[in-house]
């Protein structure tokens, strides 16, 4: 019954979008309750579908769009957990936004755009073919542009919106190229499609992966990775993410926790068989992810803007997810479950952290942590919920982040044993830094004494209630869902005609790592779920005990370091002294490795702009110049010739008579000479 309503998961937010857009300004709070209710409706439907299909079952509906393409809905375990997470977190964010955006003159516009954003993300998740996914992918990009630039009168917000749009566009072009390549390859296979099957549908793609040449697979995988890198803010296209903080904090929470940035990870997870089959595909994913995780974490250490700290943390955590997916080269399809678990858990505690930050900003009216301090005295609820979020992010034992991040580090170790230890080292270092910067932020904001005169009040309860709900999930989700989640997601690819053993042979994984990657797939698919989880539980004790407990030590150590450094310090904190301009390392981190200087000031403005100037000059002087010269010659000629048409009949007669005379003379002379 609920699966028949699947289209409403997108339909309801779209409806809310239309309503808010046209009549929002006449409704209280800009019609924000409509957006929240619509998303809540989507949540109910998703939950209904979950209860209907659990533990094994998918919803697949599709209809012809044109030619080889269809529009359709595909809800498998992978999509379903995303749907549940997005609808749940976004419902809370919308509820919170009802309080946060109260009084903003553009509230109706905000809620309309937020509803469309939600709809686009949900549509992206349960698209059943790559083309439709791409369309929603672009819609998400458009909405992020609108929302980041929500306060468009502020030049920095307008610039940040443009930056986000253009940066992700770089990735999207690669994504589109990958789709075209994939389509070409599939079309050239002359697949006989059954009724209801279309090219570019995920099941069809999975089923025919083995027939595509490996070199093409690698190209496609790299293109898809390019798209994911742009959307998920991985190095080197991460530059837009910290700037995206210019929007309202609820937008940051939405972009960073539930929607948008998770789309890239989701894409890689969705196309995991392709990445698995493509030689070097997953290696690239792991390299990008692990590097980004550490790179962003170091920048998070020095940022002063509370939202920028969280933004760098998001980039870093997304790196963890990517690296987790990348380690699939060693551990097979279970990497999807591990990465998705971190994605879901991360969305809970990151949404919580952003909303807490929003609550603090709402009261203090600044993003600068140097002007906060001692906020905890006045905002007890916010302080404790944010503590839960921070503990979860830092990976404190028994919190959600502990289970998910721990698992990624462990499979990174397996990847290390099988292939390369670099991602593992990077991830462990990043985990230490995560704990440090998280608690640096928490101590700086909530403890110590007030460093400026700010509003000393707690936020309204419409903002606190979502915080509490999210805090419960940020704490309990990992503990509660740990085992079942993996089993559920490991069953994801059983619904399709995909043989990981063959794919591993193409991708070159089986030969390098026979014990883990191949194993679950060697048995015919009959009981793969059991096999998969067994292989996983067998694999885990294979690690030495110190690998098992290392993440705990890392998290505790990080928190300890942060408290040593900051807990005492903030009591006698003097903002004027901690600018960090003198210390070269601090300065390097504070400036974000001079990325702005290198990428914007140097690369964009010098190289790209310079090249554009030269091209412009060639265009104007050479291409246009030749054309303009030619046309001016023609026009000048015509300008002179048109005077012949004087309109004076007498001139015509004169010409006529002269013509006759000339003719007569010529003919006479010709006769004389004897030509005629």
């Amino acid at each position, binding site marked *: 019954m609920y699966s028949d309503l699947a289209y409403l998961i997108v339909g309801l937010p779209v409806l809310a979008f239309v309503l808010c857009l046209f009549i929002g300004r006449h409704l209280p709070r800009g019609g924000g309750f409509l957006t929240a209710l619509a998303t809540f409706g989507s949540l109910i439907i998703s939950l209904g579908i979950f209860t209907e299909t659990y533990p094994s079952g998918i919803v697949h509906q599709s209809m012809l769009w044109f030619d080889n393409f269809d529009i359709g809905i595909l809800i498998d375990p992978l999509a379903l957990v995303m749907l549940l997470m997005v609808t749940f977190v976004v419902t809370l964010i919308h509820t919170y936004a009802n309080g946060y955006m109260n009084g903003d003159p553009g509230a109706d516009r905000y809620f309309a755009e937020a509803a469309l954003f939600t709809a686009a993300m949900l549509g992206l998740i349960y698209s059943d073919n790559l083309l439709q996914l791409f369309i929603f992918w672009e819609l998400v990009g458009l909405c992020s542009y609108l929302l980041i630039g929500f306060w468009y009168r502020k030049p920095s917000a307008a610039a940040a919106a443009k930056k986000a749009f253009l940066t992700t566009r770089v990735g999207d072009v690669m994504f589109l190229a990958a789709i075209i390549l994939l389509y070409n390859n599939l079309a050239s296979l002359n697949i006989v499609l059954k009724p209801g099957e279309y090219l570019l549908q995920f099941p069809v793609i999975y089923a025919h992966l083995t027939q595509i040449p490996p070199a093409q697979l690698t190209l496609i995988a790299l293109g898809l990775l390019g798209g994911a890198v742009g959307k998920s803010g991985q190095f080197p296209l991460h530059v837009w993410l910290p700037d995206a903080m210019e929007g309202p904090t609820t937008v940051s929470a939405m972009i960073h926790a539930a929607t948008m940035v998770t789309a890239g990870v989701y894409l890689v997870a969705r196309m995991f068989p392709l990445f698995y089959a493509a030689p070097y595909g997953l290696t690239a994913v792991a390299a990008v992810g692990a590097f980004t995780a550490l790179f962003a974490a170091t920048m998070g250490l020095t940022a002063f803007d509370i939202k920028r700290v969280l933004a760098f943390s998001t980039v870093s955590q997304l790196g963890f997810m990517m690296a987790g997916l990348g380690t699939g080269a060693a551990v097979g399809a279970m990497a999807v479950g591990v990465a998705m678990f971190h994605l879901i858990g991360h969305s809970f505690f990151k949404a919580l952290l952003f909303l807490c930050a929003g609550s603090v900003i709402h009261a203090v009216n600044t993003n600068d942590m140097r002007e906060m301090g001692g906020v905890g005295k006045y905002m007890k609820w916010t302080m404790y919920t944010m503590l839960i979020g921070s503990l979860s992010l830092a990976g404190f034992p028994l919190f959600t982040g502990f289970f998910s991040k721990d698992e990624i580090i462990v499979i990174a170790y397996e990847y290390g044993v099988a292939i390369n230890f670099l991602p593992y080292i990077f991830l462990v270092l990043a985990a230490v830094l995560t704990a440090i910067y998280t608690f640096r932020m928490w101590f700086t904001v909530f403890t110590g004494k007030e460093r400026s005169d700010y509003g000393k009040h707690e936020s309204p309860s419409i903002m606190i209630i979502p915080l509490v709900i999210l805090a419960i999930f940020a704490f309990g989700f990992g503990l509660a869902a740990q085992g079942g989640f993996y089993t559920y997601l490991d069953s994801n690819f059983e619904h399709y005609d995909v043989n990981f053993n063959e794919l591993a042979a193409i991708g070159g994984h089986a030969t390098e790592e026979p014990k883990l990657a191949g194993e679950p797939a060697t048995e015919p698919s009959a009981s793969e779920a059991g096999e998969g989880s067994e292989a996983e539980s067998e694999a885990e004790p294979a690690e030495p005990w110190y690998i098992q407990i290392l993440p705990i030590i890392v998290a505790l150590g990080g928190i300890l370091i942060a408290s040593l450094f900051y807990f005492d310090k903030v009591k006698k904190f003097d903002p004027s002294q901690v600018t960090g301009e003198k210390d070269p390392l601090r300065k390097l981190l504070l400036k974000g490795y001079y990325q702005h200087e290198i990428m914007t000031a140097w690369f964009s403005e010098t190289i790209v702009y310079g090249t554009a100037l030269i091209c412009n000059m060639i265009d104007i002087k050479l291409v246009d110049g030749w054309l303009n010269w030619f046309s001016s010659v023609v026009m000048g000629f015509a300008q002179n010739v048109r005077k012949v048409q004087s*309109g004076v*009949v007498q001139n015509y007669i004169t010409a006529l008579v002269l013509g006759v005379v000339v003719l007569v003379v010529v003919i006479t002379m010709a006769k004389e000479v004897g030509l005629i």
Partner: protein
Amino acid sequence: MIPLELYILLASIMFTIGLYGLVTQKNGVKLMMCIELLLNSANINLVAFSAYQPNVNGQVFALFSIALAAAEAGVGFAIMIALYRLYGTIDLDTIKAMRW
């Protein structure tokens, strides 16, 4: 009998005078007169050839031509009067509403 050449000479002179007037004159009425000269020089030729070659066809054509000239003069002078009423002149150089 007057030689045929003289008729042709007369006709040529008349035609040349008419043509010259048509090209040089600005006055509308003078132009009409020049056109009459052109037509009549042709008529002289028609009648002369007709007389020298025992065949009345040429004279019949001359009659038609005279009728045509009369009609043309009627229409032409009507236009001239209309122009004069509109512009107060029949100097064709000053009437240039439809040309540049």
